[in-house]
């Protein structure tokens, strides 16, 4: 059966990948029937699903959609739409008799006057619904959906805007999406955050791409203030996080006891049973043993604009010989801080991919954010690994840079992916953060 997913009008390139990830997660067969891939703007996405139950399952976990309806008809004008509605559903109209109902009208890039709305809704009276009209929480709801040519497209294509929609649809409403969670996890209302905390919406989407779900273990090796842990645990996964800087997840020493730490956020949201642990470690010297321990890895490595990327070791590569102070080795003394050195942008990505291959269960997912400057926007080479399949690459644009969310699947043993189009950049030689990190250098040039 055909259904209409009304997508959210933001993060356009994340929307279909998220639907596909959720379909995998909840175990429904999803076929994308029509979606405006060219401009990636339209909120209308027609999909094929087995039944209403599958539609409910799919939408219940989707963040970047508003709702789902059963598609009752479509056309390039109302005559076509009415003909399609009659063809598809006339044998079912009687099933909906006596049920309180309502009609709503929704326009993308265009709107109607109140009089015109009423006229359009009345034009569906041939369905002969006998139930009373009930505007508040009607058990039966129809949505008339229109799509006009929007301003960006009009100027890009050099066509003038038209007063009539180019597409019209009728849907029988099934269910709302999981978008409410965005408000619940709004950073403004969260107890512990920092300037680098990922916003609630994209954290939840990232958790969906990683297939977070009850029974699973997800790990963020650059946990910071734990936005991904919280999002994945909202969906029921148990989460583990680490960071080379423990102050990021346990809070500053001077704010001790004030609930300014990752665990306090779990308490705030009532998901403490989903918190596994946070620990201090460096991914290049990880304590996690080499075994398939994780269902998902979810991360936004610090690439060195706001937070410099550092790993264990010394800048010049020289070992600092241990000394004994007051009978105790210096590195066992309280307050000891191990030396750290700047690390390359490409190197950490490779390390994350290698770590994912070692640590993920078969079909486990890695989701990794990566910033790019706009000159990389068109031909973007994705870091690849033969044991990982690239599932999706989505992009969020800012004024002079962009960031991408890359989603990978750990291939079961015996399967390999084609990595010939993978990213092959090597880090620049150097020691300082700027020398090592092309992205930082380019972005800082704008600041």
């Amino acid at each position, binding site marked *: 059966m055909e259904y209409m997913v009304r997508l959210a009008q933001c993060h356009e390139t994340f929307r279909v990948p998220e639907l596909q990830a959720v379909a995998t997660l909840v175990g429904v067969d999803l076929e994308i029937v029509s979606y405006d891939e060219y401009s990636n703007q339209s909120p209308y996405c027609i999909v094929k699903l087995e039944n209403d139950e599958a539609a409910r399952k799919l939408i219940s976990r989707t963040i970047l959609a508003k709702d789902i309806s059963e598609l009752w008809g479509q056309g390039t004008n109302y005559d076509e739409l009415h003909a399609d509605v009659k063809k598809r559903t006339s044998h079912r109209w009687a099933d909906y008799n006596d049920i309180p109902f309502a009609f709503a009208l929704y326009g993308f890039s265009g709107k109607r006057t109140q009089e015109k709305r009423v006229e359009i809704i009345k034009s569906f009276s041939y369905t002969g619904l006998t139930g009373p009209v009930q505007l508040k929480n009607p058990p039966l709801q129809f949505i008339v959906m229109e799509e006009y040519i929007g301003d960006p497209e009009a100027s890009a294509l050099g066509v003038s805007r038209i007063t009539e929609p180019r597409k019209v649809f009728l849907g029988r409403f099934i269910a709302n999406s999981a978008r409410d969670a965005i408000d619940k996890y709004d950073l403004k209302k969260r107890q512990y955050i920092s300037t680098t905390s990922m916003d609630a919406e994209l954290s939840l989407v990232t958790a969906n791409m990683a297939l977070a779900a*009850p*029974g*699973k*273990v997800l790990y963020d090796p650059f946990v910071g203030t734990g936005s991904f842990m919280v999002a994945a645990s909202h969906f029921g996964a*148990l989460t*583990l996080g*680490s960071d*080379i800087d*423990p102050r990021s997840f*346990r809070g500053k020493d001077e704010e001790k006891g004030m609930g300014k730490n990752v665990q306090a956020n779990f308490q705030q949201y009532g998901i*403490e*049973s989903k918190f*596994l*642990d*946070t*620990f*201090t*470690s*460096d991914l290049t*010297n*990880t*304590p*996690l*043993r*080499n*075994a*398939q*321990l994780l*269902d998902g890895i979810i991360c936004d490595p610090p690439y060195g604009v706001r937070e410099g990327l550092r790993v*264990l*070791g*010394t800048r010049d590569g*020289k*070992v*600092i*010989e*241990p000394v004994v102070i007051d009978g105790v080795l*210096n*590195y*066992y003394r309280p307050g*000891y801080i*191990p*030396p750290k050195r700047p690390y390359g942008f490409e190197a950490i990505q490779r390390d994350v991919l290698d770590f994912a291959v070692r640590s993920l*269960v078969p079909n486990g997912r890695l989701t990794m954010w990566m910033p790019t400057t706009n000159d990389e926007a068109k031909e973007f080479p994705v870091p690849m690994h033969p044991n990982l399949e690239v599932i999706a690459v989505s992009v969020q644009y800012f004024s002079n840079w962009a960031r991408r969310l890359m989603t990978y699947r750990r291939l079961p043993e015996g399967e390999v992916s084609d990595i010939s189009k993978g990213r092959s950049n090597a880090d620049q030689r150097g020691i300082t953060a700027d020398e090592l990190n092309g992205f930082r250098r380019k972005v800082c040039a704008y600041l």
Partner: protein
Amino acid sequence: MKVITANFVTCSVKECKTSPSAFPLHFHDAELEMQELDFQPEFIRNVLPRIDWEALRVTANELGFPSLPESKPEGEALDDEQTLKDLHRLLLETQVMEGRLICGNCSHEYVLKEGIANFLLPSHLV
């Protein structure tokens, strides 16, 4: 640090990663705290295959828990709610708040403070 996490980690020193004597890390001066959490049998069933049972027996013993059975519960044993509850209590509800974790291979010590383990290494071990 929960007992499940202790079963997932070994020594951060690269040479120790392949040494059987490095795992599990050994608890010393461990101070425990029990925390009541929602019972999640689905999670226990899912992660149990990833648990190194021999290592878990060593850890449980070091933390003063009664001996675990010699072999990992599998198949029908996982239908027994009490078995799952016991594992839930050990793996998820038992937290080591203070103490040290010591590598049996290189003897390096990792400190645990306020439930957070520090696995960073000084430069001569990197």
